[in-house]
């Protein structure tokens, strides 16, 4: 809901409530006043009739608009009362106020009833309520219109800020430029945002430098270890059957560590969005090439490899990331495949799908968990378990959709990347 709609809703609610309340009070008050006025008129007429009767000794019919009726019998109720009388002209019941009283005469008591139509007072009432309703409508329209106009005018700087924020990209190293606003709140908001972006920029820079330094600083000792171990192997003493396996394991562990390190460095570089620049990538060619590289491995596992390229997407990616995405998906599908299994790669303009046979997941295992770092089905596996995390990061980087599904009977692992 828009802010404007929300405030308007409250305004309207309050106004309608107040108007209904005031309208009712007003109606009631007005009706009372008018009735009081009618009563007073009737009392005046009564006083007039009584005075006249005292002088003449008889109650006489006076030429009022509605002449008094004189009865010899006592009416059921004395004093003021409301009644409905049939109007012969309109053929409708019309509300009347009536006043019944006794006039003492020498020949006995006469009963006089005075009546007055309430129709005129109702007309006044209707008019007043109509005017009031019109006022309410105009006022509400005015409030809503003013709000709308104010929203367009006063909130403009806010919308500028929003647009600027939406287009802000930390990796582009351009400071966040926000327009100055004459409204104190917006000026404050813009100032806070500018400060925040500057702080973000600084943090980002520090993190980036740290990653780069860490990569360099860790990679160098690893390179030294690897080189020195290789030198050590060339010494005659290394051929000792007791020393050689130790040396071999040490060397293997060093390589594993360095592969792990490369994976983590790549992940943090993607997270830091340090891969600007994209070129058109022919994903079909890349897939063909990668599958060719993997041929030794697919043949050794006797995999049935099918590559279907019904349509080719036009994608702009960083070449290193495209290579890593395709490489990790395919390597993963080969590594976790079964002997004599299936590997099917389908590329369409919308998606890349890699399907492979593999072990069934223990129940309760959610396949998407393999996107987590270091997550492996068997913990003894030699691979560091970063391949699919890298795939996920690359997909997040380019806003690609990514899903992992496992079907049973037969067990097929399907990783889908939607462009």
């Amino acid at each position, binding site marked *: 809901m828009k802010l404007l709609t929300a405030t308007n809703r409250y305004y309207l609610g309050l106004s309608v409530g107040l108007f209904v309340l005031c309208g009712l009070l007003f109606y009631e008050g007005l009706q009372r006043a008018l009735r009081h006025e009618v009563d007073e008129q009737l009392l005046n007429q009564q006083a007039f009739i009584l005075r006249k009767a005292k002088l003449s000794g008889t109650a006489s019919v006076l030429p009022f608009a509605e002449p008094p009726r004189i009865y010899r019998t006592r009416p059921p109720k004395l004093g003021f009362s409301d009644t409905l009388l049939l109007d012969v002209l309109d053929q409708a019941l019309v509300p009347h106020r009536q006043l019944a009283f006794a006039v003492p005469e020498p020949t006995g008591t006469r009963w006089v009833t005075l009546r007055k139509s309430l129709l005129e007072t109702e007309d006044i009432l209707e008019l007043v309520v109509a005017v009031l309703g019109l006022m309410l409508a105009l006022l509400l329209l005015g409030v809503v219109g003013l709000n709308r106009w104010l929203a367009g005018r006063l909130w403009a700087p806010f919308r500028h800020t929003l647009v600027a924020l939406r287009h802000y990209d930390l990796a582009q190293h351009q400071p966040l430029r926000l327009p100055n606003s004459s409204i104190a709140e917006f000026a404050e908001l813009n100032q806070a945002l500018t400060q925040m972006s500057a702080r973000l920029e600084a943090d980002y820079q520090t993190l980036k430098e740290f990653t780069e330094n860490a*990569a*360099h600083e860790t*990679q*160098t000792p*690893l*390179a*030294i*270890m*690897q*080189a*020195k171990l*290789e*030198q050590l*192997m*060339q010494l005659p003493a*290394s*051929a000792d*059957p007791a020393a*050689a*396996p*130790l*040396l*071999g*394991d040490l*060397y*293997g562990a060093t*390589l594993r560590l*360095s*592969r792990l390190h*490369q994976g983590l*460095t*790549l992940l943090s*570089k993607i997270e830091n969005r340090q891969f600007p620049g994209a070129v058109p990538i022919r994903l079909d060619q890349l897939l063909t090439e*990668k599958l060719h*590289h*993997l041929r*030794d*491995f697919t043949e*050794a*596992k006797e995999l049935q490899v099918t590559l279907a390229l019904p349509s080719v997407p036009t994608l702009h990616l960083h*070449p*290193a990331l495209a290579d890593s995405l395709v*490489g990790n998906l395919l*390597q993963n599908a*080969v*590594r976790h495949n079964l002997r004599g299994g299936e590997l099917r790669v389908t590329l369409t303009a919308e998606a890349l799908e890699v399907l492979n046979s593999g072990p069934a997941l223990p129940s309760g295992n959610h396949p998407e968990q393999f996107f987590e770092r270091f997550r492996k089905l068997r913990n003894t596996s*030699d*691979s560091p378990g970063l391949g699919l995390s890298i795939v996920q990061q690359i997909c997040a980087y380019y806003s690609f959709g990514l899903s992992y599904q496992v079907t049973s009977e037969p067990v097929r692992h399907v990783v889908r990347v939607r462009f």
Partner: protein
Amino acid sequence: MLIVEDEAPLRTALVDYLRQDGYVCDTGATYEQAFEKVKLYQYDCVLLDLTLPDGNGLDIVRTLKADGSAAGVLILSARDALDDKILGLELGADDYLAKPFHLSELNARVKAIIRRRQFQGQRQLLFRDLTIFPDQALVLVHNQPLTLTRKEYELLLYLLANPGRVLTKESIAEHLWGDVADTADSFDFIYSHLKNLRKKLQEKGADNYIQTIYGLGYKLNVS
């Protein structure tokens, strides 16, 4: 040969390894030293670390090419620096090797660069009873042609680039399969490729000079 590397332990490892193969090695630890040396001397090959404390190694490549130097250039740099790799090769470097690397792999690359420079492609490799023409991918045993699969041939060339040295299974795997080497248990493949290679060599009457070093890898015996 000039070795430009700011890390002393790595530099000495490189120098030791390459000296054993009879190369005359000169070293530089900084950009300034490297710059001075490439200006003063002629080298056949320059091993160049790109991240130097006082400058970018790519500028040394530019200097070499600007001076019309005949030296082959092999760039050493941290992995994932794809832009460095592309730029380096565009500037005229002959090859690129990501750190950390196998010394045996480095040795093979250096040999390839120097041979290309010295014989302008007209070259043959001699090893005991083997003669190899790398340009035609032709292997002769006692002057009899030997038919090898692509991987067997690559394996033989890699062994020949590092005679008398222990080659680890890991470095062979990486040499043969590159980045995808860790997809499966590639050591089994190496074993079967080597078995076939040995068999083919023996059928042609060659000596069995490929030695298995228990727990480590393989070695091409010189004598």
